[in-house]
């Protein structure tokens, strides 16, 4: 499995001199499976450069796994070049809702007056699926999703390739809101089952502990929480993700040092998500 980060910023795109090293695009991760199937995790503004890259050798099918429908996770869809290609089959997976289909909810954003074109008018063949609690197959991988702690309907994903490599994606996740991460059994911690033993965990790490105290319930984690969650779930590598738009590159590096201070592992097991970062499992 090859994993490439195309956007790791939270909330709103934040280009500028202070964010050059880690990037300003919002959430988008590309996953290339053993059988060469292509998955996208979220479609923030990072989907724009990824789309350009994919157009060079366009696969017939792309699966987009959306964690939720907050704007920073879907705003890149309209600029994702492959959807303007009639030959492509785009399968979109996302959290189910009791009141509207995934298609209808995405179309709320992807339609006038917020966007000039209706979702139904894109040339690509789009197929929408609810990400349910039951595992399903995409290419050589088995994918599991579960609702996780964040505002509104939000899911996390666990992707296990045929060679046993596991990637877990839990952006926008505040497990500490409902559970003491150090004392409660894992079954009572949001996202625990998805992350347990993963080779790579991409996890929300938006705040410092001091910032978190002012933002409890916003749906995001602090360095303290990310470290505790990584330790409890026994993951191989933690990729700190969903960087706060106000955090400079220097601030992010200080946060990584804080995580390592708490999660006492080899430094190479704790990474800051940066645009262009490529991981292999």
């Amino acid at each position: 499995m090859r994993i490439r980060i195309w956007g790791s910023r939270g909330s709103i795109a934040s280009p500028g001199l202070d964010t050059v090293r880690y990037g300003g695009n919002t959430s988008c991760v590309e996953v290339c499976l053993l059988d060469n199937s292509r998955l996208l995790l979220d479609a923030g503004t990072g989907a724009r450069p990824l789309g350009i890259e994919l157009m060079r050798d366009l696969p017939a099918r792309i699966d987009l796994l959306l964690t939720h429908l907050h704007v920073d996770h879907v705003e890149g869809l309209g600029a994702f070049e492959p959807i303007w290609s009639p030959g492509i089959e785009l399968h979109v997976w996302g959290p189910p809702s009791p009141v509207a289909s995934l298609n209808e909810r995405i179309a709320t954003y992807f339609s006038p007056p917020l966007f000039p074109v209706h979702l139904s008018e894109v040339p690509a063949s789009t197929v929408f699926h609810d990400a349910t609690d039951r595992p399903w197959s995409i290419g050589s991988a088995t994918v599991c999703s579960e609702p996780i702690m964040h505002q509104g309907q939000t899911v996390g994903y666990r992707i296990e390739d045929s060679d046993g490599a596991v990637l877990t994606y839990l952006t926008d996740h505040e497990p500490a809101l409902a559970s003491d991460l150090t004392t409660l059994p894992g079954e009572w911690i949001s996202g625990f089952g998805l992350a347990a033993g993963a080779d790579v965990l991409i996890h929300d790490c938006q705040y410092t502990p001091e910032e978190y105290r002012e933002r409890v319930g916003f749906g995001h984690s602090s360095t303290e929480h990310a470290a505790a969650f990584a330790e409890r779930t026994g993951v191989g590598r933690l990729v700190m993700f969903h960087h706060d738009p106000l955090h400079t590159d220097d601030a992010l590096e200080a946060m990584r040092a804080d995580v390592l201070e708490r999660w006492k592992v080899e430094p190479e097991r704790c990474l800051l998500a940066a645009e262009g970062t490529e991981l292999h499992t």
Partner: protein
Amino acid sequence: MAEQVEQRHLVLILARSFASRLATPVWLVDAEGTVIYFNEAAEAVLARRFIEGPGMPASEWSTMFTPLDERGNLVPYERLPLGIAISEGRADHQDLDIKGADGVDRRIGVTAFPLFAHPGECLGALAIFWERPESA
């Protein structure tokens, strides 16, 4: 080494978190009726401590506290508010007489309602209860 766990659904995690913050007694069961959590306020009424673990099946807890209706008849699990919430997927309220683990008789009001994550998918039920003033 990772802990191997069967993850609780987020709705149950949230229900437990909510209950743990309430001063009102709360009792949480899964879809099989197994009690998986009760809060400190419930411990006081039932005179029993909550212990983490696999939980207590309905057959056990529904008789442990000998719930009696207003005529003094033992109420089976299926007719208790939680049993109705699980089996019929609707809320129910009853006044019951129970005997705590300390042997003290108490009159309680119980309201239970099912927890649906999606239509048709009942994950469990939550009961809130309180001691009524006419308790012995």
